[in-house]
């Protein structure tokens, strides 16, 4: 076996499927989509099972996505996605650029109660358009702004659609 070879250095090991902890991590993919992955450890499962009075396999797991206004940090809305208990990751169509999001993983109880077991970090979706916020000290007259942004959009042919959307505001 070569001392720099994979067989020797990795010792035949592979990556673990899980790490035995509880975590829920949220990542932004683009202005519209989020990605969440999670791990619910075996000792944590009974909390949900006893709250819902169901065994793990038949739990109604739900990923609750909260949307916040990025400036005021106020919650604007939330929505739920039903998740099969066998899943450990999900792409979430959050739908709105430039918003803060946090997700919770839990299960629905009778009378619409929600039992949370994991809470994620907070992420902000990117913008897909020009900012509405204009600094008055750095403002172009409208006709000049149109000329400027129009040409940048024309040049960026590879992402024309993205730019067009961004430009609707200055037209």
């Amino acid at each position: 076996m070569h001392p720099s070879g994979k067989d020797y250095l990795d010792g035949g090991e592979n990556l673990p499927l899980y790490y035995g902890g509880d975590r829920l991590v949220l990542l932004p993919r683009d202005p519209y989509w989020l990605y969440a992955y999670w791990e619910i450890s075996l000792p944590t499962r009974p909390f949900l099972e006893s709250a819902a009075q169901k065994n793990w396999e038949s739990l109604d797991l739900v990923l609750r996505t909260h949307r916040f206004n990025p400036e005021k940090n106020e919650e604007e809305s939330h929505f739920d996605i039903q998740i099969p208990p066998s899943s450990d990751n999900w792409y979430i169509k959050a739908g709105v650029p430039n918003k803060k999001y946090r997700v919770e993983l839990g299960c629905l109880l009778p009378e619409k109660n929600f039992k949370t077991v994991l809470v994620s970090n907070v992420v902000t979706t990117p913008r897909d358009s020009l900012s509405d916020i204009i600094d008055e000290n750095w403002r172009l007259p409208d006709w000049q702004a149109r000329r400027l942004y129009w040409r940048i959009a024309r040049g960026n042919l590879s992402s024309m659609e993205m730019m067009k959307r961004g430009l609707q505001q200055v037209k």
Partner: protein
Amino acid sequence: MVKGYLALIFHSHLPYVRHPEYKQSLEEKWFFEAITECYIPLIRVFQGLDQDNINYSVTFSLSPTLLAMLEDPFLQERYAEYLSRLQQLARKEEERTATDPVFLPLARMYRERLDFTSYLFNEKYGRRLVEAFKELQKGGHVELITSAATHGYLPLLGIQKETIYAQIAAGVEYYQMIFGNVPKGIWLPECGYDPGMEEILSELGLYYFITATHGVLYASPRPKYGVYSPILTPGGLAAFGRDPETSHQVWSSKEGYPGDYNYREFYRDIGYDLNLDYIGEFLHPAGMRSNTGFKYYSITEPTNHKEPYNIEWAAGKAREHAGNFIFNREKQVEYYGEIMDRPPLVVAPYDSELFGHWWFEGPLWIDNLCRLIAENQHIEMITPGKYLELGYPLQLSTPNPSSWGDKGYHEVWLNGKNDWLYRHLHTAAEKMISLATNFPRAGDTLKDALNQAARELLLAQSSDWPFIITSGTMDMYAKARVTSHLVRFLKLERQIWENNIDLSWLRHLEATDNLFPHLDYRLFQSLNETVPVEKDKLTGVI
């Protein structure tokens, strides 16, 4: 009177690939080809401009993994062997085409280029090409900048700010170790930006970074001059946005310069065209056909019909395209100049590996471009660092999260093919932070093990692995690499906590995954609890 500025930026990066366990490795060849076909031809162009006292300005980002490979004696030796084999092939090709008036000049061109490459690599720089870059920077026309240590895709690793700190600090430190100065700017891997990271960049003494077009264009508040003036981020650094027109002119598959029919055809290589009895000894020992770099045909037309390459015609086209590029810049800065209160700055970043390898005439195009601009009254070349010294007031604005990858955000590095990676990468980073925070003053073997754990984690974090997995070619290699580094990290972590370090295994690991010999694991210390050690050291040098 200068009407506008052009900042050409060449981003040079390859993942750390080094396989002493194999006699020859296909993946090491990426690096060897890049030296022969890109880095040395580009160095040659800029040395020529310096020699002729041409006034030009370009920026080069050299990723720390690339620098580490250029500095690695084992890879230097392997490259010298590789180059010597190519030189043998070049002589054989001259003999084979000796009576052929069409192909002999081409065979001779390759022989001369390889002889010069060998002279530059072996004799002039004693196999240390970083010396050539150092010399260029001293010449005053080339600004060298750094990148994240292993080119980690920071927006998706930034769950732990410590990762961003370690990636950037290790990159800045390694640059400093090699070039002696603190870099003014940084190339964020894949232009991957997420708000908040600029505080770390600024803390490490950096002045600027580059973003994709919509990184600056969609910044908030809305940037008055679009991407034609940098903005000042809340962290105090400047962000320069990429100009879309210059990227389109070079990159567009339909209208881009590299597709011109007179230019060299990449896909006709004697490694595929010639009989195995003749060419076999120059290919991979397993007998696989592969590129040799000897290509004798021009693109000609979009069919399989190819005419022999004509050196003069291609050189003429490179001149013409340089002229066309400048003409377009003149029109462009004239247009934006009417809107702006300052000369517009066109930021044109490209991958260095495009020039010479894919676009054979690319270095010649750059040479022509620099010479023509030096005589031009309206356009001046500049580096971002020098632009900031001009002192134009910059608008305060926060860039938009973005990348220069497909679709402009994070999807290339986060999709159904590679998303499984992040669970492991984040957990490993968490474990590394815990190690670094719990063992703040390790010595001897424990310190070595901790440093190696940091190396393995950094190697696992390369943006190249998720990128290659997405692209689908060589994805098995990328999966194996990232898995190996994570497995090695986890094994080290276990051994460290159990106080049971396998010394012989550790030494082999250090000898194999050997980049950044002076790396200090404490770069990963928790930012909540401690002041990173390296910060003082860096401030001292600044």
